[in-house]
Every structure is written in structure tokens, then in C-alpha cells.
């Protein structure tokens, strides 16, 4: 197989790499030992819960409830990490730091960014599961677990 890519192939690979930053289905599938149905169910659940939790973040931010805000952001960060939603995870990491430092001005911007990342996640989420391919060869091997 040639190592040279055409421009369209290169941009396709680049898009796939970007999508894996948003949602790495391969990583999640491996974590769930190749259980595709389970992965889809978990992603549905994450999508359903996220908006409610985002509203919670906004409310707590307004009332400056630092402890509860930190708890919620931390929990959302852990969930995002586990489902391999890396951009959301990174955004929540910044948000958590901002809460700890009580930099309220940047907090509102970060919450808006988080909402934007979630919209991007939903978009990738709606694309067929193969959208992440071609995947990183080092992340192959899910079938071995089945």
C-alpha cells in the first residue's frame, strides 16, 4: 500500500483524526470490550444527561456555588474521559481549573465553549460508526476480547 496520499485522502484522514478528538469510538469500543450495542446505549445516555448537567453548571455558576460546581464539573470530566469525548474532557478540565481559581469572568466563556463542544460531539455522534476509520492501528484488537 502506498504511503502517498492524494489531497482528498489527506483531508479525509485529517477530518477523521479531528473526529477522534471529539469522540474516539474505537477507544470507547475497546474500553467496553467490543460491545457495540452497549457503546451506543452509553452514548445515548451521555447525550441525554449532558444538557441537564450543562444547565446545572450554568445555575451553579450564577449562584457561585464553588464546591457543588467543582463536584459537577469533575464528575462530567470523568464521564467524558471514560466515553472518549476528548474535546469535551479538555474543556471541562479548563472549566474545573477556572472554578478552583474562582476566575468567574472566564467561566462564562468556558461554559459557552463547552456547549459548543457538545454540539460538535452530537454532530459526530450522529455520523455512522465507521466515521472514525481509518483508525489508529495501535487501537485495533477489540475482537480479541469477544
Amino acid at each position: 500500500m502506498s504511503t502517498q496520499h492524494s489531497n482528498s485522502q489527506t483531508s479525509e484522514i485529517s477530518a477523521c483524526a479531528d473526529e477522534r478528538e471529539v469522540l474516539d469510538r474505537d477507544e470507547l469500543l475497546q474500553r467496553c470490550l467490543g460491545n457495540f450495542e452497549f457503546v451506543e446505549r452509553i452514548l445515548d445516555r451521555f447525550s441525554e444527561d449532558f444538557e441537564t448537567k450543562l444547565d446545572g453548571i450554568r445555575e451553579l455558576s450564577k449562584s457561585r456555588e464553588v464546591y457543588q460546581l467543582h463536584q459537577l464539573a469533575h464528575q462530567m470530566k470523568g464521564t467524558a474521559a471514560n466515553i472518549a469525548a476528548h474535546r469535551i474532557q479538555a474543556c471541562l478540565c479548563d472549566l474545573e481549573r477556572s472554578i478552583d481559581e474562582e476566575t468567574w469572568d472566564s467561566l462564562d466563556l468556558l461554559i459557552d465553549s463547552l456547549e459548543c463542544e457538545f454540539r460538535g460531539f452530537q454532530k459526530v455522534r450522529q455520523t455512522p460508526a465507521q466515521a472514525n476509520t481509518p483508525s489508529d492501528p495501535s487501537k485495533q484488537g477489540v475482537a480479541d476480547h469477544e
Partner: protein
Amino acid sequence: MNEPAGRHVLVVEDDPISGEILEQCLSAFGYRVTCVNDGRAAIEKIRSGKFRLVISDWEMPELDGIGLCKSIRERRNGDYIYTILLTSRSGTSNIVQGLDSGADDFITKPFNQDELHVRLRVAERILALEGRDLLIFSLAKLADSRDPETGGHLERIRQYSRLLAEQLSHSDKYADVVDGDFVQMIYLTSPLHDIGKVGIPDGILKKPGPLTPDEFDVMKTHTSIGGETLDAVAQRHSTAGFLNMARNIAWSHHERYDGSGYPRGLSGNDIPLSARIVCLADVYDALTSRRVYKEAFCHETSREIILNGSGTHFDPDVVKAFLQQEAAFVDTCKLLQTSEASLLSEVTEIAEC
């Protein structure tokens, strides 16, 4: 009911999605999983005594993972609980704080399924080791409590057995069989050689005078009682290799090299090596110890008796190992019998006061 320690995992995670992913993964690895969403609920579950392995998130409402680990370590009753902190916190200071609170291991989120699996196997191995040592100690003490001989006998037997096994490990003939694990295993399991005496009636076991032939026949059954009991346990726990050695020793330590021993009349190499070793250790200790029916023989007399039994009572290779470790046998005998005499004198003194 015979679930090995650590196969039922308690997951403590306040985020339902992360908890569900973890549960799915653990179930696929063959673990039984119970999930709770905070440290307080976890403490209640742990009190049920059903859990030996806990995987806990760090940050949780009410009682967090650090508080949970501390509470687990403060328990005064119950088995050891192996605790793994699973958290998105990382960095040395967090790891130190987590382990310092009493956690046994630390995994960062998002977890890698293969890493999680091997770490769980480590946890199971550690729990099994703890169970093994406690089991051996408990069983040996049980046998000891019914035996009119002194408790020092068990300690001397394990020391003599270790000396013999170590010596054999240096010979070309046994180098492939007797390794460091064998030496450690015989040290651990040799005190169980008389475990079957728990099945001998007091009237025979504690009889001060000589036994009648019928009584001696009953006494001989301690070997098969011990062997069959440990065999039944070994068959139900096939991964616990130490039980096989314990069974061989209990069953065959009264066999003789020429086939004239009991209970099965095994001879030569049909007698397991561990039992051939403990046989000599047991006889040497019986000879050099005082009994109600005899004074202790000196080392030289005991040595002579053992040499006379080489090839008939004892495996000649084990006798050779005994001669090579002769000085260490004398030192061990003196050291352990002296400490036992001091203890006895101290106890007598206290009783008289």
C-alpha cells in the same frame, strides 16, 4: 458459596455512566459486580462481609474515596479489603495522598481495560496469599492445640525442613525440582504434617503410657485423615498449589523409604519429596526432644539413629542433606529448645505468683 476472594467487586462511583462502563467491563472479565454511588453506602455494603475488593472513585459527595479508604483501614474486624482508587486525578502528590489513605492501588481515568484487568489479577493474587498464610497458620494452630507435644515442635519442623530443602536445591539431582518456591512452600506447609490428629480421640492422643496395638492403629489414621481432608480442599481450590504439598506431607510423612511405613506402604520416589524431607525432620525432632516416656537424645545419638535408617526409613539423599546441614540442625535445635524452655519457665513463674 466458594467464590474466591476478590471475585465479587464493589464499585463506588457517583457518576452512573462511568459506573456502568466499569460494571460492563468487570462483568466481561468474569467478576460479580455491585455498584453504589458514595462512600457511606460502600461502608454499609462492606459491613455485609461479602466484599474483599473495592474500586472507588475519589471525588464523591458525602464520603469521598479518601475517606472511604481510611474507614476501611480503621475496621477492626473482618477480612482485608483490597482497595483501588480510580480517578481522573493524577500526579505524584495525588498518588501519594491516595496510597497514604490506605488504598492499595491507583488507576487514572479514563481506565485502560487491559491495565484494569491485570491490576485486578494482582489484587486477587494478594488476597489469595493473605488467605493462604492465614489458613496454614490457623490449621497448624488447630492441630497444635490438640497435641500434647509442645508448640515449639512445629517451629522446629519447619526450620529443619527448610534446611534440608535448601541443601537439596544445591544438588544437580534436585535443582530442577527444589527451587526457592519449594523451599518457601515447605517452610509454610510442614507445620500441617500432623493436622489429622484433630480426628484422633483424646483417650488415645493424650494417653500418657504406651499405646496398645489397636490404639496405635487408630493413631496411624491421622495421616490419612489429614491427607484426605487437605486433598478434598485442594481439589476444590485447584489454583492453591500449597494445598497439594500440604496434602502430600500430611499423608506420607510416616511412609518409609523401603515401603514399610504407613498409611499406604509407599516406597522410594513414590513418596513425595516434601514428605521424605518432613519425615526426617519429624524424627530428628522427636529424638532430640523430651517426651513423657523418654528423655531427649543428644544430637550424636540422634544422628546415629538417622544414619542407620538411611535407605530403609529415610531417603539416602535427604540423609546426605542432613549431614551437610548438621551444624545448622544443632544450632536450630539448641536455639528453639532454649527459647521454648525460657518461655515455659516464665509461664511457670507467672502461674506460681
